[in-house]
């Protein structure tokens, strides 16, 4: 790091002061310069007043994981000065608001301190208190533009896009940017040793967060009913779905909606609505996070046993309990895979980035209907709420939803008797009917013991026949899940297994390990149940590390349970402090392991 188009910096600000738009302006400007860039928001569970950070990583090589070190900190929140200055790499820079005298907390040997009186300049330039606060953030964008060599034309163009209709705001923003820019130019040698240079590496990419991508997926999949209860970090998913529906799903002639979004009284009801709508034949989904999944457990078991298609987006956050709502984790894996009481197992999809969020959310509806069961899309806060650089989303107009085995009135005519839970085709999947269909199609959905005809039963054999078929259905599903993503290096004997958003850091770590003479193969698991590719990969490697973001090694346990692989033969690399994974964590753990291993 620390060269042209290869460095990282972060802003330490106060939540609610307008820094979010300044930071996204910065990140987007870099992206529009054609340079691969990642932005990670580290925000508090609070609306206003607490410390918040934004980390920007610029990587000409296209690495998008959280940076392992930062070259510069923009310290604008005195309450975190001590902490912020400690995160600058030796030889790095610190930019602070010199309106106030240099705080002793900011002094550190080996780093260069740059002061710019943002506050003072804004007080002079603007009249209103609110403007003075908000535009102070825009002023640091200007300073960074000078220090990092950001293309000012692009910044100007972005401001026009954003404030074009509000000339007053546009002027004020331009003025603030110029304040910072001019001051930096006049007082420091610009640019810094690390800086930006236009590239052409983002042309086919977009910046999008996973929640938006999931919402788009639900829209494109033809979901018509969304039920939810607000919870961080899942809320934005339904909000995005709503705004897409308002744009694309309002009947032009009548102004009426061809979708229904129900904000439920709690997650129990959200799950119930989803299941009711799924039963009635709509593509329905709910979005939640860990605490909501806990509340939904009883209903999840009902949907599993009564075989009702339903999609659950779980945007994971730090648990247990309320945990850290604005920090990321992958700690719901087991509670999704085995959700609810009794013998249950569920299909879980693990997108690694927003592009996969889009694709997998479409797929989740198909899988839910094909296998007539709840399907979980396990996203997380990092994927869901941060903007990721991914390839443009694509859509094939020939796509038609897979509605699975649904018997309509005509199909029912042709059969002698309809038995809801009868495995006619031998694939574990019984045909269903939708309420409203006539003829022989009506049946009774019940969570209590039922036989293959859907009739109530307490008979051991009749009960077992149904639950054993569910096992067969699940085994069948394993053959049709998204395959793991496998990347091999020549001569690798070491395997790295990971899941979800860890992908970016693990792939980067694989390159770093390779450079150190440790070639590795990487397998990212993309779905539960695991397909045969997963066991094959494990069998091919002498030593396998399982990298995941939870304390107890849940993925590792699931591999052990499902594939009969001795859990002890898999070496855990666990990162569960709530921050997105860095490549360094993986590299350090692997090298430490080999250092301790006597060959």
């Amino acid at each position, binding site marked *: 790091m620390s060269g042209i188009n290869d460095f990282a910096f972060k802003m330490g600000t106060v939540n609610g002061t307008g820094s979010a738009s300044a930071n996204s302006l910065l990140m987007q400007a870099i992206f529009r310069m054609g340079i691969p860039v990642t932005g990670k928001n580290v925000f508090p569970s609070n609306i206003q007043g607490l410390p918040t950070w934004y980390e920007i990583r610029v990587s000409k090589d296209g690495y998008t994981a959280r940076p392992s070190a930062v070259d510069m900190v923009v310290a604008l929140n005195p309450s975190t000065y001590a902490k912020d200055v400690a995160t600058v790499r030796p030889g790095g820079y610190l930019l602070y608001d010199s309106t106030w005298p240099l705080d002793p907390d900011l002094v550190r040997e080996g780093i260069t301190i740059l002061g710019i009186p943002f506050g003072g300049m804004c007080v002079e330039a603007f009249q209103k208190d609110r403007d003075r606060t908000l535009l102070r953030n825009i002023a640091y964008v200007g300073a960074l533009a000078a220090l990092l060599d950001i293309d000012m034309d692009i910044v100007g163009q972005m401001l026009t896009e954003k404030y074009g209709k509000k000339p007053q705001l546009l002027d004020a923003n331009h003025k603030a940017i110029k304040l910072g820019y001019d001051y930096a130019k006049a007082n420091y040698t610009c640019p810094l040793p690390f800086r930006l240079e236009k590239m052409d590496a983002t042309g086919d990419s977009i910046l999008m967060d996973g929640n938006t991508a999931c919402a788009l997926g639900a829209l494109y999949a033809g979901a018509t009913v969304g039920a939810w209860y607000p919870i961080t970090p899942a809320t934005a998913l339904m909000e995005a779905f709503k705004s897409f529906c308002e744009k694309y799903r309002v009947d032009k002639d009548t102004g*009426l909606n061809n979708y*229904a979004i129900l904000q439920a009284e709690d997650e129990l*009801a959200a799950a*119930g609505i989803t299941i*009711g709508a799924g039963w009635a034949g*709509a593509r329905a989904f709910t979005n939640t996070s860990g605490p909501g999944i806990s509340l939904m457990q009883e209903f999840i078991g009902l949907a599993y046993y009564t075989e009702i298609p339903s999609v659950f987006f779980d945007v994971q956050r730090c648990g247990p309990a309320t945990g850290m709502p604005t920090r990321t984790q992958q700690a719901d894996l087991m509670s999704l895979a085995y959700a609810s009481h009794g013998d249950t197992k569920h299909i879980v999809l693990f997108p690694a980035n927003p592009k996969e969020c889009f694709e997998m959310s479409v797929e989740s509806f198909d899988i839910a209907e094909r296998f007539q069961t709840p399907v979980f899309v396990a996203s997380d806060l990092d994927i869901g709420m941060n903007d990721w650089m991914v390839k443009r989303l694509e859509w094939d107009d020939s796509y038609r939803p897979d509605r699975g085995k649904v018997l309509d009135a005509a199909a029912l005519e042709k059969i002698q008797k309809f038995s809801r839970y009868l495995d006619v085709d031998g694939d574990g999947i019984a045909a269903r009917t939708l309420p409203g269909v006539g*003829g022989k199609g009506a049946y009774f959905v019940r*969570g209590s013991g039922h036989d293959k005809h859907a009739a*109530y039963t307490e008979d051991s054999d009749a009960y077992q026949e149904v639950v054993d078929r569910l096992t067969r259905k699940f085994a069948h599903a394993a053959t049709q899940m998204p395959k793991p993503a496998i990347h091999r290096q020549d001569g690798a004997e070491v395997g790295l297994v990971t899941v979800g958003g860890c992908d970016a850091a693990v792939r980067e770590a694989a390159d770093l390990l390779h450079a150190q003479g440790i070639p590795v193969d990487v397998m990212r698991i993309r779905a539960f149940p695991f397909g045969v590719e997963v066991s094959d990969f494990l069998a091919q490697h002498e030593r396998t590390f399982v990298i995941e973001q939870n304390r107890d090694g849940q993925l590792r346990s699931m591999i052990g349970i499902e594939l009969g692989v001795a859990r002890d033969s898999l070496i855990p690399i666990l990162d569960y402090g709530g921050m997105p994974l860095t490549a360094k964590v993986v590299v350090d753990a692997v090298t430490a392991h080999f250092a301790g291993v006597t060959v």
Partner: protein
Amino acid sequence: MTSIAKPPVRHPSSRTNGLGFVLRDYEGAMSTLCAGCGHDSVTAALVQTAWELDLEPHRVAKMSGIGCSSKTTAYFMKQSHGFNSVHGRMPSVTSGAAAANRDLTYIGISGDGDSLSIGLGQMSHAIRRGVNMLYVLENNGVYGLTKGQFSAAADIGSTSKKGEANQQPPIDPVLLALTLGVSFVARSFSGDKKQLVPILKAGISHKGFALVDVISPCVSFNDHEGSTKSYKFTREHEVESVHTDFVALRREITIPETQEDVSVVQMHDGTSVRLRATAPDYDPTDRESAYAHVRACQARGEIATGLLFIDESKRDMHDFMNTIPTPLVDVPFEKLSPGKAALEKLMDRYR
């Protein structure tokens, strides 16, 4: 209702309804409830109601939670689609189904345990949401299925079979529903089919949420001396606030001409309910007086029955959501997915 399975043969002289069905066609599975359970009388009233309303069985969705009462759905309209969900959560499942397919007739059956304890929140919110459904609350003051614990509807001083007296005040579903802005609420008694059937008919025909609280004694756990939900107690304390009859457009039900005031309430589907107020000043379209009436009866140790409140202007869930009249399940996929060109255009917004 008998617990002996009846032969499916049809008596040649059985009367048929507008669809050509006889009453028996609206029956369901054999009841497994205790002989004499009030819930079975409600079942009989529902059978009669559905038959008289010419409901197409397969266009009816019978929804319930868990409890003896919730089993009712299995005992009528065997050709209808049914859903026994989980304890107390039938309202959300029905909300989802109704959101997806607004063209079915939703009949929800619940108990006082199901609705007023574990499911209080869900019932309340289904009322707020204005789900277009008939919601029958079979109220026996106890948990039948788990053998006799007090429910939240048990009156203070009412004793359990073991003799223990209930200390906590009851939740009155009618008062609650009125407070929550329900658009239709009635109360009846399982043994009073003459009153219950027209109320059920009106509830089904009403557009929006229609709550019918039915006092439905539990013969096994709550029909003893000291119970305030026993047959004897209810018969002695019932006060009919209005005499109710229901007139469907296709089949006129004539009621005896009297000198008393009759108010005709027009239903959304064109049908109307004729209400004969026993008290000349009772106005079932006035929420405040409905509330006062129920409270006043309560204060006298009486139970107000009949159609207690109706608001015909009330909009239902789909009106609140501004949904298209076509059931969402019938909207073709082509109309739902914006397509490739739109996505490509949209992608430029994320640059």
